[in-house]
């Protein structure tokens, strides 16, 4: 039985028994090399579910809107499961709100280029970190040798060049907020960009306001980022957003000890909401 068969069978059982009210997976798209996320509540629809190398979307965040309707069944790979951990730790959902069917993931393929997606070549945890049952076995996959290679690339640039590089990024950004909407860390009930009273970010789409958004986004999610790379994948302007996220993660790593967010439900507080008396002192 393939993982896809198991997913279909289990989804049907779960929906029929009423254990879950809805089930989230992927369905085949119009084209063979395309899938789209699928939310079903009718057991008869279970056969629409697919699992193949084109399942590019990370599913965790869909759960947020489904939970009020009842327990949600969900297929989770490494990235989806860490997204779920994130949502649980951030009190967006509760552990008992979701039923997780884990699958090992060999990485997915960019349908345009036929190459593995960037986020998958960078992936360090392709098997679920939490799940209720596994569909198929865990999959062995090489983790990238250097987690921060792209950050170091930028760090090696001279200062004015770096400045220009990021200004060009912010000049391209159209502030569609796709990166925010897809991010399992971005679960505020109202994003700071929409706060009218504080008016953190102006309505204009210009470099300055985009910079405000970009920098603040990283400060907000940096110590919780699960490195799923979805922000980068969904960016319609192809901005290298993970270069920013990973910069913060790299610094947290260097300064406050090895850090990888959302690996289990009982992690201590994130590095930026805790402290250590022995922290490095550089502001004296």
């Amino acid at each position, binding site marked *: 039985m393939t993982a896809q068969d198991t997913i279909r069978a289990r989804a049907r059982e779960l929906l029929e028994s009423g254990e879950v009210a809805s089930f989230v997976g992927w369905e085949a798209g119009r084209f063979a090399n395309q899938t789209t996320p699928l939310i079903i509540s009718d057991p008869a629809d279970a056969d629409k579910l697919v699992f193949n190398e084109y399942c590019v979307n990370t599913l965790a965040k869909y759960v947020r809107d489904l939970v*009020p309707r009842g327990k949600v069944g969900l297929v989770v790979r490494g990235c989806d499961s860490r997204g779920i951990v994130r949502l649980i*730790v*951030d*009190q*967006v959902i509760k552990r008992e709100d979701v039923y997780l069917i884990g699958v090992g993931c060999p990485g997915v393929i960019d349908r345009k280029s036929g190459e593995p997606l960037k986020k998958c070549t960078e992936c360090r945890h392709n098997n679920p970190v939490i799940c209720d049952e596994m569909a198929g076995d865990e999959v062995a996959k090489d983790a990238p040798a250097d987690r921060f290679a792209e950050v170091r690339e930028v760090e090696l640039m001279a200062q004015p060049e770096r400045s220009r590089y990021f200004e060009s990024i912010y000049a391209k950004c159209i502030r569609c907020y796709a990166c925010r909407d897809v991010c399992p860390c971005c*679960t*505020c*009930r*109202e*994003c*700071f960009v929409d*706060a009218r*009273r*504080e*008016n*953190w970010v102006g309505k204009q789409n210009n470099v300055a306001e985009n910079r405000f958004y970009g920098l603040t986004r990283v400060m*907000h999610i940096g110590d919780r980022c699960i490195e799923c790379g979805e922000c980068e994948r969904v960016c319609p302007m192809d901005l290298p957003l993970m270069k920013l996220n990973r910069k913060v993660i790299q610094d947290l790593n260097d300064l406050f000890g090895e850090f990888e967010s959302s690996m289990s439900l009982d992690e201590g*507080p*994130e590095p*930026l*909401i*805790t402290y250590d*008396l022995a922290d490095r002192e550089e502001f004296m």
Partner: protein
Amino acid sequence: MSRIGVFLCYCGSNIAGTVDVEAVAEMARSLPEVVYVETNKYTCSDPGQEGVKNAIIEKGIDRVVVGACSPRMHEPTWRKLLADTPVNPYMLEVANLREQCSWVHKDREVATAKAIDLVKMAVAKVARLQPLHSIEIPVHKKALVIGGGIAGMQTALDIADAGFQVTIVERETSLGGKMVMLDKTFPTMDCSACICTPKMSEVGNHPNITVKSYSEVENVSGYIGNFEVTIREKAKFIDYNLCTGCGACETKCPAKVTNAFEQGMSQRTAIYKMFPQAVPAKPVIDAEHCLKLTTGKCGVCSKVCPTGAINYEDEDKLTTETYGAVVFATGYKLIDWKPLYPEYGGGKYEDVITGLQFERLVNASGPTEGHVLRPSDRTEPKSVVIIKCVGSRDPNKGKAYCSRACCMYSAKHAHQYLDKVPDGKCYVFYMDVRTPGKGYDEFYMNTLHDGAQYIRGRVSKIYKEGDKLICKGEDTLTSSQVTVSADMVVLETAMVPADGIDELAAKFTVGRDADSWLVEAHAKLRPVETNTAGIYLAGTCQGPKDIPDSVCQAGAAASKVIGLLNKDALQSNPQISRVNETLCQGDGACVNICPYGAISIVEKQFRENSRKVVRPVAQVNPGLCQGCGACTVTCRAGAMDLLGYTNESIMREVDALCQW
């Protein structure tokens, strides 16, 4: 639209000397929402203040900017002034034109330009402020003292003498703490029991003091003036209303238990008083060892009790009361040296004892009735080695800190030993001798005259040869190896916080340092307060101390408590955090960051999209929040905001500055 009044002060020539105040006023008139600008020679003077008041009424001003000296100087003055006007006292912003402008710059043009910016910033901020109201927090005129040692007793007595009700919670069966275990006290050599037990009975008899012995704090909620504390009174199995404390039961009880009060050097019965002068002077039954309670057979005590006070059915009692103030006087214990110092035998040798055991050995009411007899064979030791800093000043094995009292009590032990065994030899291994205190160094010198031999260095090994304990060490003054053959070794071990302090402090959100000593609010200026308002520290729970220092701190804590209980109500600081529940997601990052434990996550019901939703949101306790605003930064959505320093007001202040 707000109606802002700007009042600029010349401060004689203090400000006007370098700042063109009229130019600043001219600019201020052009700012949006500013309806009135006035300059004054001395705004803080009576006529100046009168002018402000009149202008507020006449011009219908609803918020005020004062450009004068530092807000640290006169902000309270302006707030008080506004309290007499229709303007809310918190609709005020002070531009610091003196300390941070006219006094630090010489160039008139530059200083005026800066003053203009400062006023602009203040106007921008004040336009975004909201009226704030402090709430009255009632003060329950009753204090709770946790711990009935000398510090706790002193605090309780001082508070009670001032006319307030005090409850002492003591987890042992009697008051007295560590002091009552001691034999004599340095440097005067008063008998410890003689000065401690009168305090105990004074506490026991004081009309304003309730002693809850054999009790522990179970639960706490609330804040300054209103701590709701649940106390668990452990089952004593004796009705204290009937018991006369005659002691007949103790003499007949067949169970034998190691006596912790005598530091394990003798045995007690299962129904027992901790020591003869215990307060309350009534026994309890140790449920773990009582034959009746463990096996169901015995019941001798109930047969011999003349008043029928024994009740084997007794249960733990929980009582909840509200206290206005809490004092920690939880004290210390000695470090468990055995696992740390295997080279000293690690507990293998009976005659290697701690200082507290030595206290009991020389005490006339102790297990040897005051004769110095070593525990193993009850013979008089002819040579004694005292080792100081066991566990103190030793970060590798024990604690990095100095336990402060050991230098003095080791000198006292040497003195007492030489006094009782005149032909004995006493060797003291020391790192330093620290005797800062009244009469302390003189006492140390006397001990030297008594014949105690001080050897500067640590003992590296103790082993047994025959019935002798061989102590190998180094004399660092002569750089030579020293071997002393001793009959008994006394280890002056480090003080560490009492058991269970972490859990107890966490209940009250009192800070602890790395060694679990409780942390004072300010090391120099607020040494008896904690960061949680209404909670104070007395004695060794804050760090190692000797008796006089403990008593001093106890008195200081009591005076703070009296000051607090004297008030009928407290005015809360309204510049505290506020939660916008619509935005709050309840992820609890703010809970983590709050140093006062003022934020909690509660489940609340909301109506959202015409549906009832129950979801977690943060809740700020106005009695605990001190208004630091650390929580606001962790809140990504900005649901948490600090009143008086809102995100909006700071952002507009930054914007105002950037227009320059």
